[in-house]
């Protein structure tokens, strides 16, 4: 399991006025690992993701992304680092003014490498965008605008946009919130597929117990195109760990088995 460190928080604190956003948060994720983050609304889950992405600046503590100290980095210096991270926002965060195809192409077209090569690779970008849209099973929406899509479809496009550059770290902010169970499972399947085919590290914020259960106990079978049950993490024990957040603090860290026998009443609520 010990790969190189992808993301490390050291005693990170962030305050919104008098209320704590993050309260002495420390953890580390290595390449290929997943973290499921449970917590009530307002417990700091989204704040944690946004801090990891540099959208919020912590008041104290240090953050390392891909082994690089990013604490107090200037906004312009963040752009290169963010190019190696994918993020799915709660409602998808798609740009209304662009088509689905343009949305998914956005991270590629705005990358430094593409801007230097300029237009030479235009056809390649189109192919790549179609390939990723096929991955989330939405190739037919290429020319539609986000307002024409359903909530579940918008999140799937959001996933496509997050992974189009094949980032080694993907952050998912409540991808299943407010969706029916069938659509929610489709989305978790996509995330499993992304994890097992590309071995990307991920942070997965949710408040549905089933999501974490699926992530820990199932794997994607490329030959059948379906997910299937595996023992805990299959042959990679400890790859999926669980965090529970409360009031900006990490109140629980451990595996699924440890979560299920936790005694803390707040933590227990998330263990079914």
């Amino acid at each position: 399991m010990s790969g190189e460190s992808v993301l490390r928080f050291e005693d990170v604190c962030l305050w919104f006025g008098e209320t704590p956003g993050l309260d002495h948060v420390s953890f580390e994720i290595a390449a290929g690992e997943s973290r499921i983050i449970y917590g009530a609304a307002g417990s700091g889950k989204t704040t944690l993701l946004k801090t990891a992405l540099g959208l919020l600046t912590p008041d104290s503590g240090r953050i390392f992304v891909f082994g690089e100290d990013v604490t107090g980095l200037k906004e312009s210096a963040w752009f290169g680092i963010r190019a190696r991270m994918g993020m799915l926002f709660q409602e998808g965060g798609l740009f209304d003014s662009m088509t689905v195809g343009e949305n998914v192409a956005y991270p590629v077209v705005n990358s430094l490498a593409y801007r230097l090569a300029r237009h030479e690779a235009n056809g390649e970008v189109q192919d790549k965008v179609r390939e990723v849209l096929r991955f989330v099973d939405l190739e037919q929406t290429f020319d539609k605008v986000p307002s024409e899509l359903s909530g579940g479809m918008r999140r799937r496009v959001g996933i496509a946009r997050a992974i189009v550059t094949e980032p080694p770290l993907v952050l998912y902010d409540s991808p299943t919130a407010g969706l029916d169970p069938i659509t929610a499972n489709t989305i978790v399947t996509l995330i499993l597929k992304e994890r097992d085919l590309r071995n990307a590290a991920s942070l997965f914020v949710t408040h549905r117990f089933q999501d974490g259960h699926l992530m820990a106990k199932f794997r994607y079978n490329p030959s059948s195109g379906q997910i299937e049950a595996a023992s805990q993490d299959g042959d990679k024990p400890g790859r999926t760990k669980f965090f529970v957040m409360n009031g900006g603090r990490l109140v629980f860290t451990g595996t699924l088995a440890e979560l299920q026998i936790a005694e803390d009443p707040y933590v227990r609520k998330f263990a079914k």
Partner: protein
Amino acid sequence: MFDFLKRPVQAFQDFILLTGKAMRNIFRGPHYGDDILIQMDAIGVGSLMIVMLVGLFSGLIMGQQMARALRTYGATGQIGYIVSVALIRELGPVLVALLVAGRNASGMASELGSMKVTEQIDAMRALGTDPIQKLVTPRLIATAVTLPLLTIIADFLGLVGGFLIAYFQFAVPFSQYWTPAWQNLAYADVAEGLVKPFSFAIIISLVGCFYGMRTTGGTEGVGRSTTKAVVVSSIWIFVTTYFLGKIFVNMR
């Protein structure tokens, strides 16, 4: 003791920071030419009809009111002079700016505000684009280019409006209207008439974007930002036109 001043001072500081960043981005890549053109179309072409109408009618109104006053002194021949000076120096720029503030400062605040509350601005940053570079600077450039042009068009139609009243209602001959209207204009008047819309453009675009970018609190917040953008930019237009007018009056 002065705690009540904290928030406005903080907001003003944020506004100055946004202004600095937006201005700096004009001289720094990457430039979003498409976005500038789209905004020019929305602000310039989009406002053209209403600006033409308002320009024409302000000339008609001024002609009507001024001619009545001038007639008591037997000076209806001076109507062209009065209309041209008042329109070009003051009324044209202010009226057009207020219209564009109502149309576009509100549009910018609501568009950027909706993007803010639906996390599109965060998404933009997460995808490696500076939202000020991509959203604010194109709007600033587009407004700064189109507002002076709109003002020139409104001024001209206002002069035509004044002429229609003078010619048909008060029987002022063609050259008696247009000659003083043209000859009494100094370069300082024209400069004032162009410096003002340029300054108003900066106010309108930056105030609109500023309130849009700091929207919080969902759709209700978008409504609040939109209202604030229109009110604040209108107030600043009046304050600025007073002080700019003062400078130009003292210069001559």
